[in-house]
């Protein structure tokens, strides 16, 4: 296990500790120590990230809504998440008597685990990966399917009609949107030739092109599918407050609810991280990463996409569950499939015919044009019904009442 070449931003005492441990202790100890230090680092980032995300979300949505966000607790409301956490912790822990007591306390923990584990495969810098799995992309997908299981257990153990309704909706949506998600995450894997995240980032760094330029349609489809998987607006029917009060976490009070909420934010950050790594170059920024610590670039990109998610949440209304399903199966899946076919063809031509790397530029053009055409066609197909009536009303100057139909025909016996 070697460490990368020292750069100006490396932390030397840590390197010296590592060297000392490797030379003076048995082989396993340095591995265990490194693992523990890395895990603590990731947990710290995740915890701090949850706090920062709460603050960011509330202030930015406040600004979108023509008002300031929290600004009482701490400078610019920076301690508001802490105040929220304290409030949630000191709340009374309620558990319905009819709930499934053995299972009731499990979901908040169960839903936090995948959220945390997602951060283990990210490439924060060259060779700064906690677990450089060869099957990184598949690992991320497996974690999202565990999340939907945890949500089901939450809805089930509440023994509440509304909660179960919410949980079933979430499961249906999660498995529906997993299909386009898998298909679009396959596209970067095809280009890079490897499923490991650091490998894909290396590919983008090596060819000096972001996969987002090569693959515009998968970026879009992944963004939408991930929003739906995260249960964020416009796809947040699971917690649609105006309909079924709070969905699967209706019965959870205090910090258990706080954990669900925090996990939603952590998952949003994780998804932004996936998008940044796989499509937008990860820690590389066309060479700047030699002068600036790469993990700052990566965290910057993560938060950039997270801001995009917040923007979506503050602006768009919510879709109904059957509209969401129709959208997934009728628009996203065909788009993703067509795209995979095109991408596979392109990769085949590129690798098998050993074409020059300049053909990638041609691919960018082709993919954008094709993507634009596909999107236009599908969009027109799906929204044709909405525009059959004019979207503006007509203005009439004088009153006029139509002649009434014969009595007893329209309303009542």
């Amino acid at each position, binding site marked *: 296990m070697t460490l990368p070449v020292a750069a100006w931003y490396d932390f030397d005492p840590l390197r010296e500790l590592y060297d000392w441990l490797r030379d003076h202790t048995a082989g*396993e100890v340095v591995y265990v120590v490194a693992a523990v230090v890395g895990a603590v680092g990731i947990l710290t980032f995740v915890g701090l990230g949850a706090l920062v995300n709460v603050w960011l979300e509330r202030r930015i949505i406040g600004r979108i809504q023509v008002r300031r966000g929290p600004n009482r607790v701490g400078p610019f409301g920076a301690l508001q998440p802490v105040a929220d956490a304290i409030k949630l912790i000191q709340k009374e822990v309620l558990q319905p008597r009819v709930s499934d007591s*053995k*299972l009731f306390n499990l979901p908040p923990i169960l839903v936090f685990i995948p959220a945390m584990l997602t951060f283990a495969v990210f490439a924060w810098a060259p060779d700064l990966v906690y677990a450089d*799995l*060869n*099957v990184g992309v*598949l*690992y991320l*997908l*497996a974690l999202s*399917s*565990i999340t*939907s*299981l945890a949500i*089901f*257990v939450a809805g*089930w153990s509440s023994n509440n009609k509304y909660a179960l309704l919410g949980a*079933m909706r979430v*499961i249906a949506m999660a*498995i529906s949107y997993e299909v386009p998600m898998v298909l679009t995450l396959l596209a970067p894997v095809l280009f890079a030739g490897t*499923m490991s995240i650091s490998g894909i980032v290396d590919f983008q760094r090596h060819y000096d092109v972001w996969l987002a330029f090569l693959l515009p349609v998968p970026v879009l489809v992944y963004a939408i599918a991930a929003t739906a998987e995260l249960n964020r607006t416009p796809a947040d029917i699971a917690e649609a407050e105006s309909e079924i009060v709070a969905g699967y976490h209706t019965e959870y009070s205090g910090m258990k609810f706080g954990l669900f909420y925090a996990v939603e934010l952590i998952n949003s950050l994780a998804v932004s991280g996936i998008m940044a790594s796989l499509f937008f170059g990860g820690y590389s920024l066309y060479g700047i990463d030699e002068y600036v610590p790469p993990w700052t670039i990566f965290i910057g990109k993560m938060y950039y996409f997270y801001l995009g998610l917040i923007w979506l949440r503050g602006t768009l209304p919510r879709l109904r569950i*059957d*509209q969401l399903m*129709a959208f997934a199966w009728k628009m996203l899946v065909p788009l993703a499939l067509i795209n995979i076919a095109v991408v596979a063809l392109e990769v085949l031509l590129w690798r098998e015919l050993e074409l020059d790397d300049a053909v990638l530029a041609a691919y960018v053009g082709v993919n954008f044009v094709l993507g634009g055409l596909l999107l236009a066609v599908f969009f027109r197909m799906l929204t044709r*019904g909405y525009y059959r009536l004019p979207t503006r009303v007509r203005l009439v100057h004088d009153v006029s009442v139509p002649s009434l139909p014969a009595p007893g025909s329209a309303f009542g016996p």
Partner: protein
Amino acid sequence: MDEPAVIVAFWVLAALTLGSALMVAVVRDLIHAVLFLILSFVGVAGLYITLSADFVAVVQVLIYAGAVSVLMLFAILLTPSSARDNAPVPYSAPLSALAGLIGAVIIFVAIQTDWAKAGDEGRFQATAAEIGRALLDPFVLPFEVASVLLVIAMVGAIVLVRPAGEEEGA
């Protein structure tokens, strides 16, 4: 494979897998049984990792713990509550004897096999690339047949749940 960490991991995961599999058969509530089954799936995935089969382990979690268990949960929720009891079945004594017999045979064969030699003969790098190559070259027919089977299953499911006399709406 003889490092202490791997051995400890193996025993812990084996205990987890077998313990939850036992609880599946023993526990009263059917939903709890499914949840223990999911736990045993995860245990099996861990065992795959001790064998350095990373792709298979992740696919195990993704497919079994993620999709197949959801299917089982849906199937359970569609049954009426009265039939959801993991109650004792008739003829439990002869059936347990049969299960015990099958278990004994498997354990005997497992102990008798020379695993080192058996492992050497079928040397297979279970990485994703190799599995992909295998699926497209020697095993392409089962692969294609499996996809056709899945399509048939999906079409059948849609046909089963279509409301009678209604054409498909948005």
